[in-house]
């Protein structure tokens, strides 16, 4: 914390974590990267299962980044950043899912 800063705006985003939280985050993300790598490279599971593992670990990893590195829980007042992010993710899923769904029927002969 920057108590010694007399600047007006030392409220807000400085509460950021500690070395500990960064280290935990780092370790978690490494583990979450290794899991799908191992599963995929060794062909350990069937297609669907592998897919699920890849996606689940990716999402978990994203959450780890958000909480341990990007500190989305911090700051006072309403969490505008979280709200925009959630809406963003909804639109993201729409874009990707919607495109795949619609375009399934319009694959070119290739």
């Amino acid at each position, binding site marked *: 914390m920057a108590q010694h800063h007399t600047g007006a705006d030392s409220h807000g985003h400085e509460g950021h974590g500690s070395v500990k939280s960064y280290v935990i985050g780092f370790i978690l993300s490494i583990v979450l990267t290794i899991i799908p790598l191992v599963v995929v490279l060794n062909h350990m599971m069937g297609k669907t299962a592998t897919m699920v593992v890849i996606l689940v670990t990716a999402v978990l990893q994203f959450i780890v980044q958000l909480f341990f590195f990007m500190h989305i829980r911090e700051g006072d007042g309403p969490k*505008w950043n979280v709200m925009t992010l959630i809406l963003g993710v909804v639109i993201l899923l*729409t*874009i990707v899912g*919607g495109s795949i769904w*619609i375009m399934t029927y*319009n694959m*070119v002969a290739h």
Partner: protein
Amino acid sequence: MLDRLIEFAQFFFVTGDPLIYGAMVSIALATIAILFVLTYFKKWGWLWKNWLTTVDHKKVGIMYILASILMLFRGGVDALMMRAQIALPDINFLHPEHYNQVFTTHGTIMILFMAMPLMFGLFNIAVPLQIGARDVAFPFLNALSFWLFFMGAMLFNLSFIIGGSPDAGWLSYPPLSELQYSPGVGQNFYIWGIQISGIGSLATGINFIVTIIKMRAPGMTWMKMPMFTWSVFASCIIIIFAFPILTVTLALLFLDRFGGGHFFTLDMGGNPMMYINLIWMWGHPEVYIVVLPAFGIYSDVISTFAKKRLFGYKSMVFAMLIISVLSFFTWAHHFFTMGSGADVNAFFAISTMAIAIPTGVKVFNWLFTMYRGKLSFPTPMMWAIAFIPNFLIAGLTGVMLAVAPADFQFHNSYFLIAHFHSALIGGVVFGYFAGLYYWWPKMFGFSLPENLGKWAFWFWNIGFYVCFLPQYSLGLMGMTRRISTYGWDTGWAPLNFVSTIGAFLMGIAFLFQVAQIGMGIKHYRKLKASGDPWDARTLEWSIPSPAPEYNFATIPQVTDRDEWWEEKERRKQGIHKQEQPIEPIHMPKNSAIPFIMSVCWFVAGFGFVFGWLIFIIPGLLGVAACMIARSFYSYDADYYIPVDEVKRTEAAIRGGSV
């Protein structure tokens, strides 16, 4: 040597059409005239200091509005040329190729370079004043947005005289827009014109969201915010999620054309349908981006001139937010006939219709704002009222189009053209006109002569119906859009002729508006407006017209919705708020970077259009240099206006009483 020069000129300039030569000459003459006037009256410094480098939201707003009126003229002339060509069968006024360019530029200019900037202009004029703020959150970025838009628009318009205009429709579907079928530079102009101004739009979206979240005057909770500000917020939510899609889509098309990519090509596995899918993911939300602020304007205008609080405020807010989210789930209704199967069509048909529900709620609430009100009808109110029947027709036909199997019969016909002009003119343009007339006194300190305004109104309104009602019929008679001619045997001639008459009535209406502005300027002393000429309700009317550069000498303390109206009521009862002491006011300094950086973008964009590295490289280097300059030297980009000066200004404009 000379031969090669001529050859180059023939490739570079658009040749062979007297209309275009005429346009070139008039553009050249106008430019020379402007340069001369600026030099003769020694106005270059004034132009630079007061306009080109300004970061004041009010001036940025005015520049947006000026540019958009210019674009309305260009788009309108395009429309009249089209209508002249198809007034009757077998007319040879425009060659087919030229006709295609005209409707493409008409659509693109009207939506991206007329509606969007007019909307941003009104955002800039009204939002900070309505929420009691000194400026937007990022004034520098705001100026940059404007100049990016402006340069993008200029780049796009340049295609008229240099290189050739795009001619693949306002959304440029591939494969038609691919190199294979459009080898000219027109499509590149399209891509870069929109791309450059699109970055600006995205930045504006972010800017206003932060402004509205963070800069409201103390006491102005969300549920006390003026409805226009709410609508801007809802519209900006759509902007920030929709514009990145556009950016990517155009970038991919450009990569196809410029870098040999295969996203949307026919060969090597490309899939043109993916472009259609992507562009509508932006394109559909886009129409709600432009219509939501219009809804906000109607709300403010109607409650002002009904002298009544807006009915159902909470449901209005809720409806608007639902619309902005729902607008992302309906895009496929623009290609029901692509054969995506019954599941897809059924889903998107229903999601589209669902938007009718919140929209309807808004209509009912407007009606009930007027119900038990005391209605007066100055021009802003007339536009607002004319909108309602108009938009009901647009909505009804919208729902008809949303019925997927029925759309198989409507798609790409004049029925569709009529639907979206009803929504875009009756909904969007009328709304922005209402806003423009409403805030005009606040912008310039004088009102516009009402009389000419009413003439303009009636010509627009009648012209609108005469032009577009017949088009519904034409659609049902099987007339398809984007055809440059048709045969006598079709039986479409009489209705088309009527429609063209309507278009020219709207053209006359526009001339009335120009005259109105001209007369206003001429007699501005007589038309001088007070701070609150409409006896209105929201904070922007609590300060003088035009607003001083710092807007509010002291930031108001808000206690109610319609704060200014309540304040007037309180004053009538003799309750006066305690005056806050004036303090030094913190202001951003002017900056030349937005202008210079946008010029650099223009240069780079021009280079990309022709594939000329001698433009691309310096352009991009210039952009980078501007960014670095901003990052390194913006540590003292602001200053304070001392108390004395504020007091002096206030005394001058308010005639002594602070």
